[in-house]
């Protein structure tokens, strides 16, 4: 069997030079899909022991410890982020800690592509493809939300006020990238929300 090695879904894309916000792919991040019941105290404790951080239980939040970040996906599902190189070791730790507890931990590093958007108009750009009110206080830094973006399923992670990571399924990466390049094109800024635009 040939060696399996990761290849970015956006490797052939170059950095766009005509957009009002900066866009780049984050390919060095590994992801683990973790499922279990928060009502199971053993599961919560085991996950904390392996990850070093409590699983976020409040909807649409995230927690961080060192290079491990845990995003809330559902009441029984989390996405654990860490460096791509560390995933195998972390997954082994996690599985060892979870043992026979009714749960699931899977390496899904190649399942999604991550696009990092940065700049003053980042929220408005995303709102062109979404029904969510991204300029409201609900989307403070740290917020995680699954959403419908440009008709496809996406995961939104507000890293900082003007820095947002968008996770899309790998097969949609090219489409999402193209959509973002077009909707962020310089000169197409919406500028309906002056409090967000600092000239």
């Amino acid at each position, binding site marked *: 069997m040939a060696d399996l090695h990761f290849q970015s879904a956006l490797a052939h894309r170059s950095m766009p030079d005509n957009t009002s916000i900066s866009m780049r792919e984050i390919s060095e991040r590994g992801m683990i899909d973790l499922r279990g019941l928060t009502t199971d105290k053993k599961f919560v404790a085991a996950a904390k022991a392996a990850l070093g951080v409590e699983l976020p239980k409040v909807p649409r939040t995230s927690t961080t410890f060192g290079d491990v970040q845990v995003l809330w996906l559902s009441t029984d599902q989390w996405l654990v982020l860490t460096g791509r190189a560390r995933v195998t070791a972390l997954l082994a730790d996690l599985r060892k800690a979870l043992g026979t507890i009714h749960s699931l931990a899977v390496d899904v590093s190649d399942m999604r592509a991550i696009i990092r958007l940065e700049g003053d108009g980042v929220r408005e750009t995303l709102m062109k493809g979404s029904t969510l009110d991204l300029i409201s206080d609900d989307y403070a830094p740290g917020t995680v939300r699954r*959403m419908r973006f440009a008709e496809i399923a996406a995961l939104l992670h507000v890293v900082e006020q003007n820095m947002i990571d968008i996770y899309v399924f790998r097969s949609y990466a090219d489409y999402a990238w193209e959509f973002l390049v077009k909707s962020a094109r310089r000169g197409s800024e919406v500028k309906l929300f002056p409090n967000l635009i600092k000239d």
Partner: protein
Amino acid sequence: MIIVTCPVCNASGDETDFHYGGQAHVRRPATTDAANITDEEQRDYLFIRHNPKGLHFERWRCDRGCGKWFHAARDTVSLDFKAYYGITELPPAEIIAQAKGPWADYFKERMKAKK
């Protein structure tokens, strides 16, 4: 446009963020042997649905959120959601009291079965 709020994760959103799952409380004929089911019962189970003007009970899924199913009581005239409740639950008593026609019959039967 309908604005839906998921009772599981509290996310509010446009109806395109959710998925309509058909009429609530549809029950499979209560038997373990398929030979006991008449054609009429199977037809009713698969195809026959209420079409009320006013209060209706539906299943919805928080499709682009937490992914969980839930129940909702909705007015088909005003499109207002009257109540949200868990996927394994019955509606709140005050909503059941407002049910009319086949829905009132259905809940009366369910309540009787509960006792």
